[in-house]
């Protein structure tokens, strides 16, 4: 029944869309006015040979502005949904503070008899060399990390990564700096994310842990977002939000697009750090908020 309804509704959607799209302008139609305008102003007003970048960061900068903050909102949602137990940053002293109440509730452990003692010893033997959890919360070390399962790969992979990473880094930065590629900072940011992932896959998390941490990455990401706002808002000096306020260099140089290039660089920071945060927080959704409760008998735990 569900399958039937699904196919009927899906087919109906496809049919309605098909009816709609046959009326769209085809390959023979003239370009719309807005496209002509973008092509016309690319060289004289922005000194860039790349109209797509000019549309992204120039004439339709406000779209890109909205998109940037949609991405930021998504990053924040992923962080919120995927956050795990926070690490201990300082000494809290729950045990010390709750001692009196605990004493009242639980006046003292029952004396452990010989059978109980041997059972506990057997349990300790069977659970192997696994380091026991801290006896009390207060004894847990500050800044203890979760065990890291991602170790480095073989020497072949590591060598390949060592060779590829500088090439990719240069290629990514080139995409952004030259501004010839449609999009500039967006593809460049994704290339840099790929680079981080390569190093992660080849060398394990430990090698990048110092750089790829939520703390510094979030700060850099927000700096990128702030740069986007500043670059676009300074356009008010020249009349409108997103207008060019930087001097224009001749085309096909680093600074040829004026604020276009600045916006593109900010976008590189934003996209690069944003996607890194998203990927690593998805990888790190390890801590299970719902403990598997053996007494839970309503069948939820069967699967």
């Amino acid at each position, binding site marked *: 029944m569900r*399958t039937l309804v*699904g*196919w009927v509704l*899906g*087919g109906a*959607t*496809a*049919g309605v*869309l*098909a009816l*709609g*799209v*046959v009326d769209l*302008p*085809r*390959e*023979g139609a003239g*370009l*719309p006015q*807005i*496209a*002509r305008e*973008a*092509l*016309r102003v690319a*060289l004289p007003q922005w000194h860039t*040979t*790349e*109209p*797509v970048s*000019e*549309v992204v960061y120039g004439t*339709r900068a406000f*779209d890109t502005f909205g*998109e940037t903050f*949609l*991405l930021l*909102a*998504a*990053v924040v*949602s*992923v962080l919120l*949904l*995927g956050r795990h137990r926070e690490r201990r940053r300082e000494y809290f002293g729950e045990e010390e503070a709750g001692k009196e109440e605990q004493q009242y509730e639980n006046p003292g452990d029952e004396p452990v008899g010989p059978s109980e003692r041997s059972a506990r010893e057997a349990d300790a033997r069977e659970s192997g060399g696994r380091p026991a959890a801290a006896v009390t919360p207060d004894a847990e070390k500050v800044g203890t990390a979760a065990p890291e399962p991602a170790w480095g790969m073989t020497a072949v992979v590591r060598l390949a990564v060592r060779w590829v990473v500088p090439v990719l880094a240069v290629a990514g930065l080139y995409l952004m700096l030259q501004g*010839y590629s*449609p999009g500039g900072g*967006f593809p460049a940011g994704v290339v840099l994310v790929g680079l981080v992932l390569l190093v992660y896959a080849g060398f394990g998390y430990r090698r990048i842990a110092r750089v790829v941490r939520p703390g510094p990455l979030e700060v850099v990401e927000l700096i990128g977002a702030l740069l986007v706002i500043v670059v676009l808002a300074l356009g008010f000096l020249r009349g409108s939000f997103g207008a060019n306020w930087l001097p224009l260099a001749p085309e*096909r140089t680093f600074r040829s697009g004026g604020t276009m290039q600045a916006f593109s660089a900010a976008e590189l920071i934003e*996209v690069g750090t944003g*996607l890194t945060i*998203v990927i690593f*927080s*998805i990888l790190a*959704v390890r801590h*299970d*908020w*719902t403990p598997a409760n053996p007494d839970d008998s309503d069948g*939820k*735990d069967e*699967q």
Partner: protein
Amino acid sequence: MIVANYLVAGVVFGLGVVVILTRRNLVKIVMGLSLVESSCYLLLLSMAYRRGSTAPVLLGPPKGNSEQGLATGNVADPVLQNICLTAIVIGVAVTAVLLVTVVRIAQHYRTLDADRVRDLCG
């Protein structure tokens, strides 16, 4: 015959809707949504195409034409290409949020079956 591209985009959109409606696995539902997104990319890029056009790059004009001449010549639509770029980033963002939600649902209910996720139901 660019209209074939348009129709394929419509069909892919429909297939995405079918996947969303008929599958119960949450990961597959997210994949269906990605299919719908992809159909939009196909439609946008197909709409940007013009017969015999060049890429919207004002560089290396053919003989007897200036770079500014390219701007009034036969090129693909740069605005739709920009919209497609925007759509890709938004697609990635939405998919990431959905996947994290799916992971949390899986951890909470110990299942990926949408039929068994019923706590909001009465």
